[in-house]
């Protein structure tokens, strides 16, 4: 699936929720579900420190695609992180670098991308795009 298709699928999923409780329960579930990153990658150089919650991000480049794993100490952030990973992981550096992540806004969690909230999600996204940019230029 393309980045756009992944996002539209998420937005579609969220359209079934009738109130905020259901929506958050779903995100929290996503956050609780799986260990998103191997313990060995949860080290300081992969840490993106927000003011409120922390995010770890690990990237691997294989066969022209970037694969992300990530984690957060706050469960709602982790739920969001898992969706971002779902959207961007396995895509090409170019597509990642140019991606427009509209789904966060569309599902009503835009505030997590506020630059001054600094919960780590925005910083993680920036970091992912940096990987995309760096690897894209290496490909040329």
């Amino acid at each position, binding site marked *: 699936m393309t980045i756009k298709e992944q996002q539209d699928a998420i937005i579609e999923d969220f359209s079934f929720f009738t109130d*905020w*409780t259901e929506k*958050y*329960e779903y995100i*929290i579930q996503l956050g609780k579900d799986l260990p998103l990153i191997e313990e060995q990658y949860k080290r300081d150089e992969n840490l993106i420190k927000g*003011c*409120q*919650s*922390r995010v770890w991000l690990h990237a691997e480049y294989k066969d022209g695609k970037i694969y992300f794993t990530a984690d957060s*100490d*706050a*469960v*709602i*952030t982790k739920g969001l992180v898992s969706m971002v990973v779902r959207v961007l992981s396995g895509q090409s550096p170019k597509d990642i670098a140019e991606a427009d992540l509209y789904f966060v806004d569309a599902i009503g969690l835009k505030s997590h991308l506020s630059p001054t909230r600094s*919960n780590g999600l925005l910083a993680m996204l920036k970091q992912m795009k940096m990987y995309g940019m760096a690897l894209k230029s290496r490909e040329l």
Partner: protein
Amino acid sequence: MTKRAVIPDPVLDIEQIRKDFPLLQTPVYGKPLVYLDNAATTQKPQVVLESLYNYYTRYNSNVHRGVHFLSQQATEAYEQARKKVAGFINARHEHEIIFTKGTTNSINLVASSFGKKFLQPGDEVLISAMEHHSNIVPWQMICEERGAALKVIPINEQGELRMEAFDELLTGKVKIVAVTYISNSLGTVNPIAEIINKAHAAGIPVLIDGAQAIQHVPIDVRELDADFFAFSGHKIYGPTGVGILYGKEEWLNEMPPYEGGGDMIKNVTFAKTTYNELPFKFEAGTPDIAGGIVLGTALDYVQQIGITAIRRAEEELIQYAYNRLSAISSLRFIGDAGHRSGAISFLVGDIHPFDMGEILDKQSIAVRTGHHCTQPVMDFFNIPGTVRASFAFYNTRSEVDLLVEGIEKAKRMLM
């Protein structure tokens, strides 16, 4: 929880008082707002907004030295506000009241100006482990500049100052002590009278960070004998952008000016500039005229309701909140001092404070989460942050009940 005897005061009619605050009537997510972030900033009563409007529509003008009518009016109102502030904290002289931008600016002024004059290599500045960053970083900066050392009074597990350690730290090397009256992250009320007495016995001046005290307890700087006292207007129902530094005349006269510019000078030539008298020496540039005047209105409002009545109402409310929160299983308080005021910090199970804050927000309950600009306190307790509910006299028991319900719901969702 508090050990202070409760003095009988007129009981406040909170429902009536709430009507004074337009923002408290504003719904959030379609439900009534439960505003429990008062330690961050307070809401403003209608009279404050009217005073602001009145200033800008009737006598807005630059102050000092103006010959014309509006300028005279603005100047008089501004200086009248200074008088009100002096009265509110019982300062000996009006010129001991310096208008600043806020507590942070007030403390920076003292750190820089006092530090440049009095700090030498090897000297020490003594603060505490529960200080707000605004009462840490300015001292770190000036200590580095002057080659002085920053020493820290430790806290115990209840979040109280370890006074026996204070006694030991109070050596002849200490040139100034800077402590908060009330902790913004723990709610602890510190024994500042004792601290000031002991420091003075050793000839050392004391700065009190009053950011979380001025709105909750009566302040008498003369009785306390504080050398410096700092607070912010926006935390006592006044506007953003204005604050106060009280300083004893003796110290302020000794200290060099902080910023240079209009109003703070007597005479300027390129060869030599002579500085103005107090308070103007420390007020460079056009001040926040509206802010100063309207802070005066806010203090009038508080005085009219009565600060002791406010204290009593808040103490009762906090006691109620404390009792109700205690009953929530797996909730633990961060900071559990014998004497507290204003704020209650807590954590629930291993729920991240950020998650708790978000789920409370969705229920129209505004609390603050995070380190509250007191990272060393978080490091001490080895936690990422806390959830903090902070109270004003306009909060009610039913709001506390909503908070408790909100936490229970968050627990169900997050645990």
